[in-house]
C-alpha cells in the first residue's frame, strides 16, 4: 500500500506543478500584451539576453561548425562522399545545432541568472514590495524577460548559424584542403529557406521556454539561499530538457 500511495502522491504533485506552471504562463502572457509596458526594462533585458550572450554563443557555434566539418570528413571519406560536407554542415547548423546549442548555452547563462535574481527578490520580499508600490511583478519582472527572450534568441541563432558555417568553412578550406569557391557554392546549393526559418522558429520557442522557466522558478522559490539555489538548478535543468523535447516535436512538425 505504501508503494501505491507513493505513486499517487507523486502524480498529484506532478499535476499540481503542471497546473501552477500553466497558470503562471497564462498570467505572464496576458501581462505581456496589456499596458502599462516597461520599454526601458525590455531594452535592458534584450541587451542582457542578446548582446551579452554573443561571445558564448559565437564560440559555441564556431567550434560546433569546425568539429562538424572534421567529423563528417573522416566519416564521409570512407564512402568517397566528402563533397557533401558543406551541405551537411550548413543543414546541421541551421536546422539543429544552431538553435539547440544556443538554447542550451543561453539556458545556462540567462535562465540561471533570471531564477537567481527573481528568487533573491522573492526571499528578500522585494517582489512583495513591488506589489505594495502599485507595480505588478508579472508586468515589471516577468513580461520584459519573456518578451526579450523570445525576441532575442532568433537573432542570436542567426548569428550562430553564420559563425557555425564559417567554422566549417575554415576547417574544410584550411585544414582539409577544399576549394573555397566550390565549398561556398555547395553550401548554398541545397540550402532552402525553410531550413533557416525552422531554426529561427525553434529559437523563439527556446527563448520563451528559457525565460519562462527562469522566471517561474525564481518567482516560486522560497526558503533563503538554499531555495534560490534549488530554483536556479531547476530553471536550468527544466529549460534544457524542455528545449530538447520541444526540438523533437518542432522538427517533427516542420519536416514530417
Amino acid at each position: 500500500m505504501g508503494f501505491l500511495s507513493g505513486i499517487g502522491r507523486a502524480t498529484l504533485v506532478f499535476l499540481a506543478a503542471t497546473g501552477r506552471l500553466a497558470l503562471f504562463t497564462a498570467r505572464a502572457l496576458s501581462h505581456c500584451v496589456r499596458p502599462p509596458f516597461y520599454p526601458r526594462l525590455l531594452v535592458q533585458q534584450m541587451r542582457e539576453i542578446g548582446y551579452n550572450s554573443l561571445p558564448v554563443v559565437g564560440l559555441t557555434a564556431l567550434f560546433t561548425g569546425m568539429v562538424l566539418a572534421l567529423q563528417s570528413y573522416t566519416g564521409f571519406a570512407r564512402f568517397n562522399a566528402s563533397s557533401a560536407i558543406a551541405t551537411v554542415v550548413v543543414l546541421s547548423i541551421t536546422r539543429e545545432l544552431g538553435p539547440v546549442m544556443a538554447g542550451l548555452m543561453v539556458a545556462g547563462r540567462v535562465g540561471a541568472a533570471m531564477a537567481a535574481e527573481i528568487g533573491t527578490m522573492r526571499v528578500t520580499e522585494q517582489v512583495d514590495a513591488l506589489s505594495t508600490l502599485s507595480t505588478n511583478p508579472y508586468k515589471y519582472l516577468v513580461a520584459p524577460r519573456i518578451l526579450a527572450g523570445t525576441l532575442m534568441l532568433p537573432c542570436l541563432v542567426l548569428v550562430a548559424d553564420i559563425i557555425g558555417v564559417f567554422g566549417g568553412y575554415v576547417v574544410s578550406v584550411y585544414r582539409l584542403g577544399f576549394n573555397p569557391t566550390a565549398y561556398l557554392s555547395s553550401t548554398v546549393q541545397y540550402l532552402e529557406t525553410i531550413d533557416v526559418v525552422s531554426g529561427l522558429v525553434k529559437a523563439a520557442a527556446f527563448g520563451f521556454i528559457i525565460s519562462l522557466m527562469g522566471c517561474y522558478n525564481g518567482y516560486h522559490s522560497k526558503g533563503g539561499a538554499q531555495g534560490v539555489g534549488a530554483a536556479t538548478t531547476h530553471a536550468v535543468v527544466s529549460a534544457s530538457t524542455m528545449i530538447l523535447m520541444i526540438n523533437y516535436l518542432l522538427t517533427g512538425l516542420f519536416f514530417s
Partner: protein
Amino acid sequence: MSTATPKIELSGVKKAFGAKKVLDGVDLSVAKGESFVIIGGSGTGKSVMLKSILGLLHPDAGTIKVDGEDTTRIGGRARERVMTKFGMLFQGGALFDSLPVWQNVAFGLIQGQGMKRSQARDIAIEKLAAVGLGADVANLSPAELSGGMQKRVGLARAIATTPEIIFFDEPTTGLDPIMADVINDLIVKCVRDLGATALTITHDMASARKISDRIGMLYQGKLIWQGPTSSIDNSGNPYVDQFIHGRAEGPIQMQVKLA
C-alpha cells in the same frame, strides 16, 4: 471609538497552510488615523495577517474591508487601486538592490503614478530628508548602506506616495536600541505628519508602547486581547502579562521541539 467606517476591518479571517492553521478567525477594526500595534511571538501569524490585508495572500475564510470596501477577493485593476492607499515598511527593508537609493524611494511615484523622473527625484530627496538622510545617499546603492540606514530608506519609500495606511513589519528588528528608538520616533513623526492609519506588527515591547494608540495580541491565530496602550500593564490577561514581561513560564508554551 467613533461610529465612522473603520479604515481597516477584518472579520473571521482564517488562513491555513496545509494542516497548519495560521489564522483562526481574526477580528480586528482599526479606525482612521489610529496607530494599532499587533504583538505576538514568532510564528503566530502576524506577517500572514499583514499580507492578507495587502492581498499578497488570500484568506480561506472571512472578510477584509478597507474603507468599508470588501477587498478580500478583488484582483487586477481593483486591487491595484486599493494598493495605492497602502505603504509598507518591510522587515528586511526589501529595497531593490538593482536601483540607487533615490529610485527606490521614488519607485511608487515613477512606476505606480507615472510621475516625471526629475520631479520624482526632488520628492525622493525631500522624503530622505524627512527620515534624516542627506542628499548624498541618493545615488548610493542600497547595499552600501548600514542596516539602520536601509530601514530609513525603506521608511522614506513607504511614505513617498503619501499613503493613507502604512504597515510596519517588525520595524525595529535587527537594530541596536538607540537606532530602534530613532526609527520609532520617525514612525511616530511620519504617521502624524501624513495623518495616516498605521498597523504595526512587532515583538519589541518598547517599540509597541511608543508608537501605538492601541495594542492587540495575536496568539494561536486569534486576537486574544486588545485595548488602549495605557491599559497593557493591567490587561488582566495572563498571556499578555507573560508576553510583555518576557517570561518563559506561563500559559504560553513555547514549542522548543520542532513539530
